[in-house]
């Protein structure tokens, strides 16, 4: 299972704050695109999310988003493994 979280304006745009992704479903989706299934990355995860929710495609492609894997900001595309917590969010505005 991969836990995917969305925050702030991105959550409002997607209408979702959390998706639980079954690892087999993700592996099948990737295999159907001709890629080996041992390793996933964040681009593939986004493609999978957008296949399930076609109206998300424009939301993900039209803005700069941050990705955090297991609560650390990483550069996309980054490897993702079963059990990871993956968060997508817009640039931060605290302080």
């Amino acid at each position, binding site marked *: 299972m991969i836990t995917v979280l969305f925050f702030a*304006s991105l959550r409002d745009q997607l209408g979702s704050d959390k998706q639980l992704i079954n690892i087999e479903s993700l592996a099948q989706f990737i295999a159907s695109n001709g890629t080996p299934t041992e390793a996933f990355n964040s681009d593939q995860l986004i493609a999978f999310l957008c296949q399930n929710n076609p109206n998300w495609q424009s939301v993900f492609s039209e803005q700069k988003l941050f990705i955090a894997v297991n609560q650390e900001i990483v550069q996309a595309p980054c490897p993702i493994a079963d059990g990871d917590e993956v968060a997508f969010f817009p640039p931060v505005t*605290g*302080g």
Partner: protein
Amino acid sequence: MSHANISIAVQPEPFDTGEMYHQLSQCTPSPGAVVTFTGLVRDLDNDKNIIALELEHYPGMTEKSLQTIAQQAASKWPIQAISLVHRIGRLEAGHPIVAVGVASAHRVAAFNACEFIMDYLKNDAPFWKKEIRTDGEQWVASKQSDVAAKHRWQD
């Protein structure tokens, strides 16, 4: 490894930077310099439609991220103690959002560490501000000047 005493809080409750200063100034041994920064909700007079700000964050990651930033500062400069508190939830004009306090033997180290922490917090800590307006709600956009402020530490 730095031996700075680091205290981090993310909370809906108000806080008092004056109290933070008192605690830092009573470090042992007595620090030569204490610098505090407080970020407040500016007066919203120039836009009468803004009623308040709402601060969202990413529970769990927020605290880790602030701890990492404070530790980075403590490893770059000789620091005795760092206190950092950030509010979440609804905030009215004039109320403090964030405070960073640094105690050190030397003023330049205390100033640099305090500025460094704020510059990194503004870019890396998962908080998001939303304006609560008479005509609806509006997420606040990030500022390019904050990105530039962080980059000056990376040469």
